[in-house]
């Protein structure tokens, strides 16, 4: 049986959240653990780099107010906790009774596996005249329990798992984890290793963006451009094969730097191959920009309000004019490179897609700049993992901001919590889909860059 919190307790918790919200704090992530019959929830909030937390202990099988009413970006994280721990979150909004409303609307089920879905996710819609009136999303088809599996593991083993968390953002997650480990153990990474990491990180962004674009072309039914993007992906694979056997760039990162040195000549070759993409990317971008059918069709779907975009991350936020620079958060030497974050005026499918092109071009420019000023020297300065501690690291990933909380005890992972960009953006998907035509759904989902494998872990 469920035990509910008293009215007073609930109000006090909501009051605390509102207090932080009014000071412009954002919900970074929610940590949860279960001990002695109690579920311990820790709401970690952030504002300009300052971290605050709200702790709540509730008995197992109780209900607690939903954080969504104050921080809507927490919906997916909360859903994940409700799936894992014996606790239920209640909000004032009533759940949709799909069975009851089936008479008035057409019940549409889509997923969890379909060639136009990048990852498994199951949708149920109530549609009228092909326009979605209500939507319900079911996730969890991707869950592997990576966070739990990492606990008690040695760093290299945990790194192996984290690099395989997602094919497009695995490198960034692995890198963020290592940066946290190095911070706790006071390891100073040599300059060259930092630059190499930067180049590899940007390459992983480029790869992710190219895959996103190939997906968009598929949704638009543009075979010719799909072929062009595939050519670019082959180019990327050719460049990546000069560095590693694996196009995901797994296995290069090690604590203290990178596993092996990459010669400057090789890097120049890599750069030469990658820069070939610039022309093709620009020409596709310009063509789309001047094709009325594409601009009209895409501009009308997936519109995100600026107030909502403010709490989102990545292209969803940047296309609404919020110049969120996630690279600034990084401890990699991004500050020495010159770049301008691409932004747009209104967040819709079209502007987000245009930003995919811009972001790819930006990554190419950053790779070129970093290779030009690549320092010489060692690439590894590993000095042992003896310290104990916990830290929160915020790093860029291809689709937005990645936050990771790592606890390490003498080379053993004691605690890890990952929150990728999709955990934030996914929370708004249900609302975004309302009013969209069924046909446009793949396009809307593709333009949001959801990386569910890193979200569900």
């Amino acid at each position, binding site marked *: 049986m469920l035990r509910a919190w008293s009215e007073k307790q609930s109000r006090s918790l909501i009051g605390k959240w509102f207090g932080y919200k009014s000071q412009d704090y954002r919900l970074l992530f929610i940590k949860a653990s279960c001990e002695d019959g109690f579920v311990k929830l820790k709401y970690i909030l952030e504002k300009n780099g300052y971290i605050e937390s709200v702790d709540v202990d509730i008995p197992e099988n109780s209900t607690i107010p939903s954080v969504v009413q104050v921080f809507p970006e927490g919906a997916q994280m909360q859903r994940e906790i409700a799936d894992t721990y014996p606790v239920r979150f209640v909000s004032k909004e009533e759940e949709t009774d799909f069975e009851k409303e089936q008479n008035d609307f*057409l*019940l*549409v*089920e*889509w997923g969890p596996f*379909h*060639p*136009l879905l990048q990852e498994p996710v199951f949708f149920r819609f109530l549609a009228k005249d*092909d326009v979605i009136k209500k939507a319900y999303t079911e996730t969890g088809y991707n869950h592997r329990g990576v966070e739990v599996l990492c606990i008690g593991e040695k760093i290299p083993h945990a790194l192996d798992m984290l690099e395989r968390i997602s094919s497009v953002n695995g490198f960034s997650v692995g890198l963020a984890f290592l940066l946290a480990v190095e911070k706790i153990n006071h390891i100073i990474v040599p300059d060259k290793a930092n630059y190499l990491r930067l180049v590899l990180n940007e390459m992983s962004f480029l790869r992710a963006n190219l895959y996103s674009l*190939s997906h968009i072309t*598929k949704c*638009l*039914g*543009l*075979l*010719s451009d*799909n*072929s*062009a*993007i*595939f*050519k670019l992906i*082959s180019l990327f694979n050719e460049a990546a094969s000069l560095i590693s056997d694996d196009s995901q760039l797994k296995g290069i990162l090690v604590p203290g730097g990178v596993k092996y040195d990459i010669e400057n000549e090789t890097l120049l070759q890599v750069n030469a191959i990658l820069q070939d993409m610039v022309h093709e990317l620009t020409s596709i971008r310009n063509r789309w920009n001047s*094709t009325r*059918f*594409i601009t009209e*069709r895409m501009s009308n779907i997936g519109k995100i309000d600026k107030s909502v975009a403010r709490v989102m991350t990545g292209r969803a936020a940047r296309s609404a004019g919020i110049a969120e620079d996630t690279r600034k958060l990084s401890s990699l030497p991004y500050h020495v490179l010159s770049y301008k974050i691409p932004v747009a005026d209104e967040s819709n499918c079209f502007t987000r897609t245009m930003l995919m092109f811009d972001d790819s071009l930006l990554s190419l420019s950053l790779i070129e700049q970093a290779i030009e000023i690549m320092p010489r020297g060692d690439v590894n300065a590993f000095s042992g993992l003896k310290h104990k501690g916990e830290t929160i690291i915020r790093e860029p990933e291809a689709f937005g901001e990645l936050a990771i909380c790592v606890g390490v005890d003498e080379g053993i992972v004691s605690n890890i919590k990952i929150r990728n960009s999709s955990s934030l953006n996914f929370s708004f998907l249900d609302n975004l889909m309302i009013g969209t*035509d*069924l*046909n*446009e*759904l*793949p396009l809307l989902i593709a333009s949001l860059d959801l990386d569910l494998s890193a979200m569900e872990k």
Partner: protein
Amino acid sequence: MLGKIIWFFAVILSVPVLYIAYNFIKSMMPGQSKTYILQPVYRLLKLFEKKDENAGFLAYFFSIGSCLFSLIALYMTVAGFNFLFVISVLSMMDLLVITGAFSSGDFSGKVSAKRGISRFIIWLFTSIVSAASIYQVAGTLKLNEISRLSESNGLIVNLPFTFVSLFIILLMKGNLMHFNFGISGNEQSLLGDALNSPYSGWSLAVIQLAQWTETGVWLKILSNFIPVAKPVSYGVVLFVFLAFLLLDGYISTVEWKKAARLSWGWAGGLAIINFIYLFYY
């Protein structure tokens, strides 16, 4: 009689050949699946081999029914029957396919049945208006007469828009360009071959045959308007259709309601313009 039989089989065979050519050219594009030259035929033969235990009686009923009607329509076309007879048999075929999709009971069946009806109304309207225009010019609706008259008198001079609107019906049937209703043909659509959703195994193969035959019927009807010898005119229409199939890869799909609007405008609109022009000027 022999001529008609030869034409009948020639049209049936020409459409797979068309798709073979299309597949072959498409497989040369990077990023697309590599296919054998005879891929569409292999697919058909494979489908006849498959056993589907879940398929009910209705799936076979609708598929065989629609295939039968399409074959009748084809025979009527090559034998030079009345244009309106052909249209009515094709309507029966389309209605069977739509009912089959709706009878599946799942969402994609229902949604595609709705789109199918919308497409059905547009092409039926266009055909009827076109028939009136053709009658006004040729004084007959018999296809063999029309063919003879186009060769000798160049009917197309008076029926340019009617010809275009009939060609657009062909594009609608093939789900091409901006006249794509998002049903069948495209394996990667959200509805995923929705029109065929109750069908699998050999009932799917029969439906596939029916659709090929239907395409053949329209190609043959259109070829009657080209003012050259019959085989040449059929070849010309085949070639133009292949060009549009390939061009489709360069043009983004549109939302189906917009496709319906565009189809009304281009197919229905042009047919009416031609009709008004013929009657009042």
